[in-house]
């Protein structure tokens, strides 16, 4: 397979970037999208050109590192996969593919396709955890009964890998789907109850501070989410936030 790639090249956060055109050959159907870029980079290195910087780690769809917008869609054209799980068989010989970084002011470009998603870490640090006594008398989590349905919903929310595709897909660069998943996974479980109100208020406050936009319910986030996090989580976040705002001290 022979492809024309239009890839965003940008030296660092301060400089302006631009789309550059590359040709890549000898791509097979069973390669992943990242392997295709590996092939391109090998060629660039041989020509003494700088390779295209991109984030990747596990290459099996669970780490949430890969972050590219392929032909306008975060993680490319396939549903419910990350870029590393996207196969080249989704493309045709002779295709032109646009590859851009996740674009949002809250995710500044560090280099080429690598963006700084530290904003998500700071939102998590603001309240996306359960304080557990680790002094040696920790209670077994299974000692607390949890309805199966709630456990399943909490698990579904917890499958969010924090990749940021929701922000990249949203016309408002809103991080609501991510925050809603992180709030929901605790709101649905008794273990999350003690810090429930404080958690949602602090996480939303941090989200706003980071410069993400407001949710207008377009649904693009859930449509592009590689883990198919549902919009029901955003409704739950809104409920949690409303009730915490009314009753917090």
């Amino acid at each position, binding site marked *: 397979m022979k492809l024309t790639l239009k890839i965003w090249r940008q030296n660092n956060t301060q400089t302006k970037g631009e789309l550059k055109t590359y040709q890549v050959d000898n791509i097979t159907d069973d390669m992943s999208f990242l392997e295709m870029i590996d092939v391109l980079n090998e060629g660039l290195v041989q020509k003494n050109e700088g390779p295209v910087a991109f984030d990747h780690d596990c290459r099996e769809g669970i780490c949430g590192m890969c972050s590219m917008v392929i032909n*306008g*869609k975060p993680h490319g054209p396939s549903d419910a996969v990350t870029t590393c799980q996207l196969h080249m068989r989704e493309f045709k010989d002779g295709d032109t593919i646009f590859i851009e970084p996740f674009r949002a002011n809250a995710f500044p470009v560090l280099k080429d396709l690598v963006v700084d998603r530290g904003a998500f870490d700071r939102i998590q640090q603001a309240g996306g955890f359960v304080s557990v006594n680790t002094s040696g008398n920790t209670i077994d989590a299974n000692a607390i009964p949890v309805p199966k349905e709630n456990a399943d919903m909490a698990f579904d929310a917890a499958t969010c890998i924090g990749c940021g595709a929701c922000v990249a897909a949203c016309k408002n*660069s809103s991080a609501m789907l991510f925050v809603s998943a992180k709030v929901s996974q605790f709101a649905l479980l008794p273990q999350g109850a003690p810090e429930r109100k404080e958690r949602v208020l602090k996480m939303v406050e941090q989200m706003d501070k980071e410069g993400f*936009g*407001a949710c207008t319910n377009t649904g*693009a986030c859930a449509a592009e989410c590689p883990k198919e996090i549902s*919009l029901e989580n955003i409704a739950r976040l809104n409920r949690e936030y*409303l009730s915490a705002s009314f009753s917090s001290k």
Partner: protein
Amino acid sequence: MSLTGLFLTSFLVVHLIGNLQLLKADSGFSFNAYAVFMTTNPLIKTVSWGLYAIIILHAVKGLALAVENKKTRNVKYAVDAGNSNSHWTSRNMGILGTIILAFIVVHMSDFWFSYKFGETPWKKYTIEFANPEQINVEEISGVTKSVNIVSETHQVLIAKDLYLKVKETFSNVIFVIFYVLSMFAIMFHLWHGFASAFQSLGINHPKYNPLIRSLGIVMAVIVPLAFAIIPVYMFLN
């Protein structure tokens, strides 16, 4: 946005019920009586000032939301995902809202302003209850206040003839087209807006979602279409 939006949507239903009086072939008696009720009832008058405030609040909040959200992405994508992951109405609420606001300004100056401050002729309707089909209409002048007297045998209504003003407006094809197109803007605005309001309030539940969806279709399709039928009907008659 959600609370003000739902309030404005509920107003549409009330407004439509009133407007359907225009379709009655009674020389405007029902419609003019409705207009008198809407402009003299103290409760309705209070609610209507609240309504104007909520229209402005909804517009100002919407504008602020659009501006703030626009600022979150300085470098745009070279390729836009378009309709592949969201409905176009959801991405264009600001534009649709602006069209609706422009419509409201034209609409209010057409009818509300001319009814309240303009030169509108007065009509006197007399109905004998023994023969309610027969409505006696006469033009009168020198009146400054509407009167509605209901006795055991008959009703006399003296009111500004807003019906005539509506009829005149909708004899102009440009206005008819403008009104019908504006109703489509409302249709698309509500197609996203109605369900979105519930989502923003945290109401997304398998038990209630079918009801919200059905109500959404009624509000977004049937209500604007019913509104749009009125100018077309009046133009053709």
